[in-house]
């Protein structure tokens, strides 16, 4: 804009305005450039009005104060320009939902249950290296997946694809109401405590009566050394299994306890099963600890050797399945506990709800 006709203003002051306008123009799209011209005219009118009021030209600091009041160039450009979205408000909730589904419920479990164990195998059982590799892969995987999803949604936003979400819906096709979260009933906790106490008694009797687990097979099979090593930890986990429902019954004022205790019990069991699996899997040196071994009388029988092998493999598969099931349960229980904490925080922070027409 030509400023030479502003006779009353000093050249330096108008130079400052031009520099300011140029800085704002840099951030404003071409379609909105005429707004810049209007704003520049407004600024000059302000300076002129002030000069008329003071009956002298403004100095640089006074012009600078007017421009400062107007705002930083980037902020002013943001106000002048039209609102721009990478992903608009219509698509944004769907974008967040898809992002959560893919990252939390697909990618994370794949890395924990598939990529992690594969890395563990590839590193020859080196846990540290396997975890580091898995985290590295997970980190880049999360970025790539999030980037791809964002790109797809940004393209949807730009191409204005009509998903027809506003029209193509039927109230009758809405999902049913979610069931209210059910607290463990007294009867449920009582049954759990009772069965846990039976299990503890059974475990306590086991060292003296091996028939309780082996049945008639005790004639040619006996528990391996592994059970002696893990007997106390198993007993302790069983004790936790008894205490959890017992405390739930006796402390109903602790609503957080069942969630947390269940999670702790799952974690402890998972650690125990993992340690048992580690001990039972043959090492590179050929050392391993079978679950059952043959008695001295049956040691040379080919038939019993085959039976012992089948029993060992069956127990190994059962433990591996248990480990997988507990891992999934652990993820779900962690999620449920976090949901519980979030709800609790929300309820605490929400003192009132007003209904208005």
């Amino acid at each position, binding site marked *: 804009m030509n400023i030479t006709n502003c006779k009353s203003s000093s050249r330096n002051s108008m130079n400052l305005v031009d520099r300011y306008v140029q800085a704002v123009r840099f951030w404003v799209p071409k379609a909105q450039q005429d707004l810049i011209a*209007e704003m520049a005219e407004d*600024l000059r009118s302000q300076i002129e009005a002030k000069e008329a009021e003071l009956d002298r030209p403004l100095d640089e600091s006074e012009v600078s104060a007017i421009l400062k009041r107007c705002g930083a160039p980037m902020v*002013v450009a943001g106000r002048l320009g039209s609102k721009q979205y990478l992903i608009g408000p219509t698509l944004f909730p769907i974008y967040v939902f898809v992002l959560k589904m893919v990252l939390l419920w697909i990618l994370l479990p794949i890395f924990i249950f598939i990529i992690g164990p594969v890395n563990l195998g590839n590193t020859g059982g080196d846990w540290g290296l396997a975890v580091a590799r898995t985290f590295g892969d997970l980190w880049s995987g999360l970025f790539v997946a999030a980037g791809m999803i964002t790109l797809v949604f940004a393209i949807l936003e730009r191409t204005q694809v009509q998903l027809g979400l506003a029209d193509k819906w039927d109230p009758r096709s809405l999902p049913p109401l979610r069931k209210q979260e059910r607290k463990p009933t007294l009867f449920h906790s009582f049954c759990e405590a009772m069965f846990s106490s039976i299990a503890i008694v059974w475990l306590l009797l086991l060292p003296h009566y091996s028939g309780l687990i082996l049945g008639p097979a005790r004639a040619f099979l006996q528990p391996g050394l592994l059970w002696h090593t893990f007997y106390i930890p198993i007993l302790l986990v069983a004790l936790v299994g008894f205490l959890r429902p017992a405390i739930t019954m006796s402390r109903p004022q602790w609503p957080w306890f069942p969630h947390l205790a269940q999670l702790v019990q799952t974690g402890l069991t998972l650690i125990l099963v993992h340690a048992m699996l580690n001990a039972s899997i043959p090492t590179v040196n050929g050392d391993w600890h079978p679950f059952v071994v043959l008695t001295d009388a049956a040691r040379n029988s080919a038939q019993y050797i085959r039976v012992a092998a089948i029993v060992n493999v069956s127990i190994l598969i059962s433990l591996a399945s248990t480990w997988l099931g507990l891992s999934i349960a652990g993820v779900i229980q962690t999620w449920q506990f976090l949901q519980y904490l979030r709800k609790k925080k929300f309820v605490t922070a929400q003192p009132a709800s007003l209904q*208005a027409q």
Partner: protein
Amino acid sequence: MYVTYYMANGTNNADVLENLKLELRRGCLIVAVLAQLRLEQYGYTLRKALADDGLAIDEGTLYPLLRRLETQGLLVSQWREEDKRNKRFYRLSPVGEQILNQLLEEWNSINASLRKILQEAQI
């Protein structure tokens, strides 16, 4: 319609009030701008007139608003030279005149309802 009044811990009440005041002003500003532009004016004089009447509005808010109202057909504008400077003059279009009258009716109706509600609530 359900309005949830949510006050999280640490929320600054002054910020909440400022946001609510901005929301309240937003609709009123449009009516004020349309009413002021019954007489032709350019940006700076319009801003000054609004500020003198107690409704100050910054450049970054006014010019995009004028652009939007013009796109909606409520204003007409013209670049013209005055005092050897190019200025964009705005005035209300015939459609804008009609819309302004309807908005003022709505404004009066809302005002009356609000007064009634406040009297009933004895505020």
